């Protein structure tokens, strides 16, 4: 795969330096959002959210339908203005001025739910180039970025001159994601990037995204309804409920609170559920289990233990 380092970048700190840097890239302070304020439809979607997003973190955001996930992430690049509270990007309030909003739009990349409905250009190439063009990059820079990001999402060169409307749903989705990646955002935010795809397509897109993360070391926030995917790829999980942060921690920490998750209408991964059932039947499984691998290891160590006895 092409090294993202080939892509001309204004500021290109070394990967390690980025990860070690202590200050968070995004800081959300007491964020509150009320929709349709002052009408009979008034609805408070976010209620005092406090979060810090570190450089290079991969975070899974989960929560029941209507818990405020989409509302939260649209604040991160100033698409929605907070009713109350502030969002700092690299220590600067993003809603301070027109300039800071513009900066936030290019440094925080947001991929919407069903992004394929935003495609509009005649060719795939032009559509991916839309973001970089708005950033006023030179044609050469744009060309490098378009080709690199197409490669990242697994879109071959032969598709670049095709019309995006003649492609399959999964391909369109990849192109839309490439259009945001091409802006080389320091924080990539995706709202359910895998919704409506088949299992193979889901895995591929997820692997593409993780590849992008590893190459660039940029932070990634993924909204998902799939506990398995969140557990597999994220280092940290944030659980939203009624516009509040209900849990924030590693997948282990979050899935160990199974009861609370179920009360919120969320499920734990299937393997965690299975482990719980087995324990009820008296099988002494150890540790937190949420992937098939962990289940295998726990069962194997159990078998070994039994054999020794």
């Amino acid at each position, binding site marked *: 795969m092409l090294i993202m380092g080939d892509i001309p970048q204004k500021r290109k700190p070394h990967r390690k330096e980025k990860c070690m840097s202590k200050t968070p890239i995004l800081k959300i302070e007491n964020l509150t959002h009320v929709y*349709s304020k002052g009408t009979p439809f008034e609805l408070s979607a976010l209620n005092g959210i406090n979060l810090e997003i570190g450089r290079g973190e991969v975070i899974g955001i989960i929560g029941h339908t209507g818990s405020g996930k989409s509302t939260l992430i649209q604040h991160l690049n100033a698409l929605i203005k907070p009713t109350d509270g502030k969002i700092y990007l690299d220590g600067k309030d993003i809603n301070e001025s027109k300039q800071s909003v513009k900066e936030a739009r290019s440094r925080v990349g947001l991929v*919407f739910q069903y992004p394929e409905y*935003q495609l509009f250009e005649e060719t795939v190439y032009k559509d991916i180039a*839309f973001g970089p063009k708005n950033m006023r990059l030179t044609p050469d820079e744009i060309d490098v970025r378009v080709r690199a990001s197409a490669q990242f999402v697994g879109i071959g060169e032969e598709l670049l001159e095709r019309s995006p*409307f003649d492609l399959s749903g999964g391909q369109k989705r990849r192109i839309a994601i490439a259009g945001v990646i091409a802006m080389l955002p320091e924080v990539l935010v995706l709202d359910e990037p895998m919704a409506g795809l088949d299992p193979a397509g889901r895995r591929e897109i997820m692997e593409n995204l993780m590849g992008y993360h590893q190459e660039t070391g940029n932070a990634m926030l993924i909204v998902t309804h799939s506990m398995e995917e969140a557990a597999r790829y994220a280092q940290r999980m944030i659980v939203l409920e009624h516009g509040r942060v209900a849990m924030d921690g590693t997948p282990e920490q979050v899935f160990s609170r199974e009861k609370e998750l179920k009360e919120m209408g969320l499920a734990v991964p299937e393997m965690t559920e299975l482990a719980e059932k087995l324990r009820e039947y008296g099988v002494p499984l150890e540790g937190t289990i949420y992937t098939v691998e962990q289940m295998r290891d726990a069962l194997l160590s159990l078998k070994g233990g039994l054999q020794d006895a």
Partner: protein
Amino acid sequence: MLKDITLGQYFPGNTVVHRLDPRTKIVLVLIYIVAMFIAESFASYALMLVVLASAILLSRIRLATVLKGVKPLILVIAITAFLNVFYTSGHILVEFWIFKITKEGIFNAIFMALRIIMLIMGTFMLTYTTSPIMLTVGIEQLLGPLKVIKVPVHELAMMMSMALRLIPTLIEETDKIMSAQKARGADFDTGNLVQKAKALLPILVPLFISAFRRADELAVAMESRCYHGGEGRTRLNVLTMGGRDYISFALAVAVLAGVITLAHFGL
């Protein structure tokens, strides 16, 4: 932003006003409009204000919401009133250069502004308290007799209800596409007219594509449920007039008669 448009918006509720038959409400609004145009004096305006106020109070819709419907037209109303101040002849109060402000002019301006505002608020009461579906059913039934002279009443009503149904969806979709393109750095606010028109392309293309897709899906869904026009179609909820409908008709006729009488005596 786009969502704040209240045109044709319905505020669900279960008050007397909401429960009136849609046909009644349409006729009542027509009577109200006629009466507003006949009304000319303090007394008749006061009567109409009482009518409007009781409708708003009974419907439990906040006054602020009803006034919001007037807001987009404030400029038009202001200009109308302004012109009336200067172009009415009569008893001169102030005079400078070529302008004359007359007592009649000021009264005229106030009445004219009041009339427009009351007309808007009254008609908005209809759409605020009647769901778009009920509204089209009402119109279809009221226009029913026109079928005799081969007016495709059912088809027109169906088209209207589908258009009404799709407006909020399209607005929502526009909002979504705009956000998505803004996230890619699109700028819809700056630049000259040509640049602004060009900036609309990334919105219009996806919007048209999705509108056609939706229309197509809707047509398939209707056909697969054997929709074949209005012939022989019956309704699940047949409209029936009740006591409150007849009472409000009686009141409306009384008010209209009152306004005509007041106008006749020049009060």
